[in-house]
């Protein structure tokens, strides 16, 4: 099939899936635009679909362009929220294409400029999008080399590329630049994976630590986040919100705001908003509206939620089954039954959900703090009954997200108000709105029965996870008779829940790694030795050994009184192992985390410095869910309203952090999430080693620690 036909076929698919309209496609690749275009799509839709539990359309995921001046642009629907892909993806493209790192420009998260992407989550950017980017760059380079051979009158094998220049081997002065080759030409090439990317050992820019390219803008205060856009006539909107989730609107008396100077009132059914050029005036005005609601019965709170969840009617999904757990029970000399709990946790990015929307003729343009620009485009088009091409989402820098900005309700609010008023409308949630509307990490319960034979081999693993999700529920250890099941139900939680950095895995790793230490202590074995004895996975063994060396682990029978903790796990393809040292004040229950070491096997690491920063960040953020973060509520009333009642980690919590990334020349894996998964189990195990007290519930607040200490 000819290239044009292939393109046509894909265009048809796109039209069918209503994603990228032909007109936009032509606009994107407009005939007036010279240069080399390589179209590509992510390689592993199965992986994406499995990981995200959603089916992706088979359209193009991104493309790169080499301009006539040799500048390289990568258009991608991925977004930058602090995780650093603005730098690492550019490194990958530059290295594979053999251009200077500085010549790569990233255009991210603009639905008019970038082809469809499902969203920036699941640690997919480097491990799934990355290989496609490399393949595209390899393809582009091979096309350029063919063109150069023609131009220089040589064969392709006489040529080599370096720094955006193709030269003839051994012939000084005989060369042509990428820009000269693409000038006046318009070359379209559909990625057919004929050109193989380099071997990992050949990369020079990848594998190098590069300081994030957005640092200078950010330290100047010049980096633009959604709330920083200033549009002529822009109004801030405050939306009338129910006081409780599940409350039903009855009526509202808006008379008090009708005659306030410069306040604009919008009433569209139950959707009521006030707008003012000053957000504080809008906030004052919205408080003057008296609204009546009917409330649902407030059945649960943060204490009763666990029984409520366990008593709910759930659907069971078997995640993994091997051997027969009945036999495992018989083979076990001792059986350990534990139940683990974790509370609702908020995302709490420092930038709250923000969006500004305006009309350009009949098209809505929205600048949105989101992880999912195309998802937001879908939502706005659907809810406001607009064709997709009448909605453009632009994603500027995102001020932290952690899964919480996959939903972006604020964008719909801004778009709706822009459409109703004709004005540019900014919706910048207050911290209180952020807590109220957050999609919390779900409260969850894990019931775990494990067994051990008289040789300290794990002989039984019967694992039931309720409401956390199955990510990270892998047994990890070598157990002949094991079963893992995940239980869930729809509409059980009194408010919205969602993905929170390494969703499910924090809860699952907490349960598994706590249980392993319970067994090791019973066997009278050092918990590292117990793990190594029961592991077969070489990569897990590798990170455990690496972290033991980094930490200076000395084997002991636990609890040793030293306050040492250990945990390991697997997330999104990467292996992590952590060790920690804590001090516990037995009078107050206060935990001081003295140091944390972490080893990570993430396959080939594109930007070691950036990856290590992610590990540091995971460790700091993870201390929050381990020790203090818990949303308080009664039914649909969220009692947690601001940081005064929700303690996130602070500088004074900062332990000595040491990290190591194993040197691997294998497929690239996740970097943004894995190192957070161990933090609950790690600290729980360290508290046990310090005090002999075993914690079964996250967060391990001083109160819960004192309770556990009273049982020792």
């Amino acid at each position, binding site marked *: 099939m000819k290239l044009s036909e292939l393109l046509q076929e894909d265009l048809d698919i796109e039209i069918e899936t209503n994603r990228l309209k032909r007109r936009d496609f032509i606009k994107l690749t407009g005939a007036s635009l010279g240069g080399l275009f390589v179209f590509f799509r992510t390689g592993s839709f199965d992986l994406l679909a499995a990981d995200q539990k959603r089916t992706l359309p088979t359209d193009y995921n991104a493309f790169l362009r080499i301009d006539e001046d040799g500048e390289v642009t990568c258009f991608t629907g991925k977004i930058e*929220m*602090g*995780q*650093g892909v603005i730098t690492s993806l550019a490194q990958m493209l530059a290295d594979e294409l053999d251009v200077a790192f500085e010549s790569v420009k990233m255009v991210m998260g603009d639905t008019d400029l970038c082809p469809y992407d499902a969203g920036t989550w699941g640690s997919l950017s480097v491990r799934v999008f990355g290989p496609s980017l490399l393949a595209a760059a390899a393809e582009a380079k091979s096309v350029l080399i063919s063109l150069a051979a023609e131009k220089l009158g040589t064969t392709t094998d006489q040529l080599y590329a370096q720094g955006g220049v193709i030269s003839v081997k051994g012939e000084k002065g005989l060369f042509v630049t990428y820009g000269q080759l693409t000038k006046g030409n318009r070359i379209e090439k559909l990625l057919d994976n004929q050109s193989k990317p380099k071997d990992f050992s050949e990369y020079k820019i990848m594998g190098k630590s590069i*300081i*994030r390219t*957005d*640092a*200078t*803008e*950010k*330290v*100047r*205060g*010049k*980096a633009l*986040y959604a*709330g*920083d856009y*200033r549009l002529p006539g822009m109004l801030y909107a405050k939306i009338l919100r129910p006081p409780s989730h599940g409350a039903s609107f009855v009526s509202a008396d808006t008379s008090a705001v009708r005659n306030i100077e410069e306040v604009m009132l919008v009433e569209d059914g139950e959707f009521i908003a006030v707008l003012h*050029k*000053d*957000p*504080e*005036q809008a906030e004052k005005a919205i408080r003057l509206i008296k609204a009546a609601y009917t409330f649902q019965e407030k059945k649960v709170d943060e204490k009763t939620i666990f029984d409520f969840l366990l008593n709910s009617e759930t659907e069971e999904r078997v995640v993994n089954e091997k051997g027969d757990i009945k036999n495992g029970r018989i083979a076990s000399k001792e059986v350990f039954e534990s139940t683990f709990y974790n509370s609702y946790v908020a995302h*709490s*990015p*420092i*930038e*709250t959900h923000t969006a500004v929307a305006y009309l350009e003729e009949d098209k809505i343009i929205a600048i949105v703090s989101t992880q999912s620009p195309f998802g937001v485009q879908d939502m706005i088009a659907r809810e406001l009954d607009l064709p997709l091409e009448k909605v453009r989402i632009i994603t500027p*820098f*995102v*001020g*932290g*997200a952690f899964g919480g900005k996959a939903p972006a309700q604020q964008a719909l609010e801004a778009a709706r108000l822009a459409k109703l008023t004709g004005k540019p409308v900014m919706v*910048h949630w*207050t*911290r*209180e709105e952020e807590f109220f509307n957050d999609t919390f990490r779900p409260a969850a319960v894990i019931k775990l029965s494990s067994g051990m034979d008289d040789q300290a081999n794990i002989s039984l693993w019967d694992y039931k996870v309720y409401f956390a999700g199955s990510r990270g529920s892998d047994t990890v250890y070598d157990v002949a008779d094991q079963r893992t099941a995940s239980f869930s139900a729809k509409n059980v939680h009194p408010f919205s829940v969602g993905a929170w950095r390494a969703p499910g895995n924090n809860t699952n790793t907490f349960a598994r790694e706590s249980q392993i230490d319970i067994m090791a202590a019973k066997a009278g074995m050092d918990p590292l030795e117990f793990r190594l004895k029961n592991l077969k996975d070489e990569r897990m063994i590798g990170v455990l050994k690496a972290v033991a060396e980094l930490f200076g682990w000395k084997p002991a029978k636990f609890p040793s009184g030293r306050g040492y903790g250990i945990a390991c796990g697997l997330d999104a393809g990467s292996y992590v192992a952590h060790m920690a040292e804590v001090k516990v004040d037995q009078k107050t229950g206060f935990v001081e985390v003295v140091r944390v070491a972490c080893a990570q096997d993430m396959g080939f690491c594109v930007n070691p*410095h*950036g990856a290590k*920063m*992610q590990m*540091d*960040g*995971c*460790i*700091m*953020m993870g201390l929050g869910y381990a020790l203090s973060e818990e949303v308080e509520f009664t039914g649909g009333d969220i009692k947690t309203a*601001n*940081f*005064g009642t929700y303690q*996130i*980690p*602070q*500088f*004074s*919590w*900062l332990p000595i*952090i040491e990290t190591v990334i194993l040197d691997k020349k294998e497929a690239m894996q996740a970097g943004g999430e894995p190192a957070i998964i161990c933090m609950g189990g790690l600290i729980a195990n360290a508290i046990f080693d310090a005090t002999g007290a075993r914690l079964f519930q996250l967060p391990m607040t001083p109160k819960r620690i004192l309770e556990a200490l009273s049982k020792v």
Partner: protein
Amino acid sequence: MEKIIQFELNGNQVQMPLNQDQSLLWALRTHFNLTGTKYGCGLGFCGACTVLMDNEPVRSCTIYMADVEGKKITTIEGLAPADQLHPIQQAFVDHDAMQCGYCTPGMIMNAYGLLLKNPSPSRKLIIEGMNNNYCRCGAHSQIVDAVESVSNEAKLNQIK
């Protein structure tokens, strides 16, 4: 109520009719287009809105414009000439002391205020002095390193 408020902003005298009960944060953002100062919580918990008032770091979300009359305000935009970086800003770049960068201006302004008071604080004092500026991404370690790197007498003159 609107009233003409006069104060010094990043080295310039300004006079503007402003709502007296508007917060300094939103006045900076909406009237002066100084959007480097960020909203984080509105109650002074997180420090994303930190600016200097008469060389003291303050939470601009908790300062009313009425109280800004006659004061000297410095925001992240006023820390260095447009084409230059202040040594603290440079240290944040060199140490890559940020991830999402949203809390960064507040961090830098707070660190600046800290160093104006004590040009060579120990690591422990830096941690104490920065404690109430929140970073959710967890760049704490790099931020402390960055502040520590400019924390010595020799660089004080550059800072001032």
